[in-house]
């Protein structure tokens, strides 16, 4: 699952736009959108908003949280808290990235916002690394990851799950050999090519 897929999933988020055209509602499979009335806000999926904006058919209304004061608070809270705080959107990075790259003019203080959102992501990412470290050293193979967003998970994927797979396999192996020293052929983690039957001359 690479970031383009995370983005694809995040593009389903609904966002408000102000169209400069009017149209009847559209019955998309994913649900109806519209009606569109020029000058009046309407909620559409992010992928549609980005498309219409590129066609200059609308203005994007940035979500409430995309605003300096709110984000400053979130950033401070994130620094203070030991755990991951709940983000205003579970795809905050994707929404920010798409809105700010397709419609920078629709977002007041766009560059500042870009920086602070990146800061928040970085704080959370380094928190993630620290907690991974603690969790692995605490001999865990299971951990709770509440409030972590998909893109943040992606930052340790697949290296984290892969590392845990290996650690768990080596642990199982160590335990198994302790339990039974005289065992044979169970090395190599689950495959072991050896089945020493007596019939090595079948015909």
């Amino acid at each position, binding site marked *: 699952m690479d970031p383009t897929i995370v983005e694809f999933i995040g593009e389903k988020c609904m966002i408000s736009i102000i169209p400069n055209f009017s149209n009847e509602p559209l019955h998309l499979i994913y649900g109806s959108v519209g009606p569109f009335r020029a000058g009046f806000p309407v909620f559409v999926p992010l992928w549609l908003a980005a498309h219409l904006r590129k066609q200059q058919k609308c203005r994007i209304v940035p979500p409430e949280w995309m605003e300096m004061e709110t984000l400053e608070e979130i950033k401070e809270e994130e620094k203070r808290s030991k755990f991951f705080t709940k983000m205003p959107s579970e795809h905050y990075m994707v929404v920010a990235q798409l809105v700010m790259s397709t419609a920078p003019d629709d977002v007041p203080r766009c560059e500042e916002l870009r920086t602070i959102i990146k800061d928040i992501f970085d704080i959370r990412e380094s928190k993630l*690394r620290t907690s991974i470290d603690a969790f692995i050293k605490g001999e865990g193979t299971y951990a709770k990851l509440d409030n972590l967003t998909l893109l943040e998970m992606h930052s340790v994927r697949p290296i984290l*799950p892969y590392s845990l797979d290996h650690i768990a396999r080596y642990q199982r192996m160590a335990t198994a050999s302790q339990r039974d020293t005289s065992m044979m052929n169970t090395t190599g*983690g689950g495959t072991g090519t050896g089945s020493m039957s007596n019939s090595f001359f079948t015909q």
Partner: protein
Amino acid sequence: MATDSRELQDLALKHKSSCFYLSTMNYFPNYYSIEDIFVTQEKVECKVNTRLQRMGFLDAGAETEDLEPGRTINLPLWYIKELKVNNAYFTIALPDIYKNVHKAVCEAETTHIELGRLHPFFYEFGCYLTPYDRNHVIGRIIFETLRQRVRHLLDISKNDADSKPDHRLDNIEAKLHDAGVRTNTLYINWLQMSGNNIRISELVEEHQKKRKRADRSDDEGGGGAGGSGDMDMPTGKKPSW
């Protein structure tokens, strides 16, 4: 042995067959795993316990027909692992590399160890030796070592992606490192919005490069089998399936 198996590590890390639609799965040895075959090619020092008839050919330093008790020989893991741990023929001498890191493991000081230099397949090789270790340290050591080094792996794959870790890492670690670097690259591409273009398929690109090289190197024609001949092979027709 070291140089030999180091070459194997380099080879093991070359993943030619990984292409876009095969999201590479985590290493988990199976019958066809080339890497597991590389690991089981490693030699283990064994002491011969009893006369083994007509097996003298396994002893490079002797001319005898039989393998004589008391001799020390190197045997490949693929043979050793088919024997019972407490077989009457050989006693396996465990390599010192695991004992040597024991202290570092106990002190949780493993990140600075050049693991790949100790053994290119430090973990997987250790797995196979675990049952022969009556003190049950090796199993513990490999598991603890990786546990201690994961944070380090996470950090170096994010921060110094460009510096090749050379032989600081064992094969398993180098794969994890590669995966981490790849994640980071994809993320940076995404931030720059450059990850979305459709790209030429890897094999086609490789093939085109090869053809250009061939065209350049021999201008006298005949440039590579079917060189320029199939340049216009896909005709105006849409690729069909």
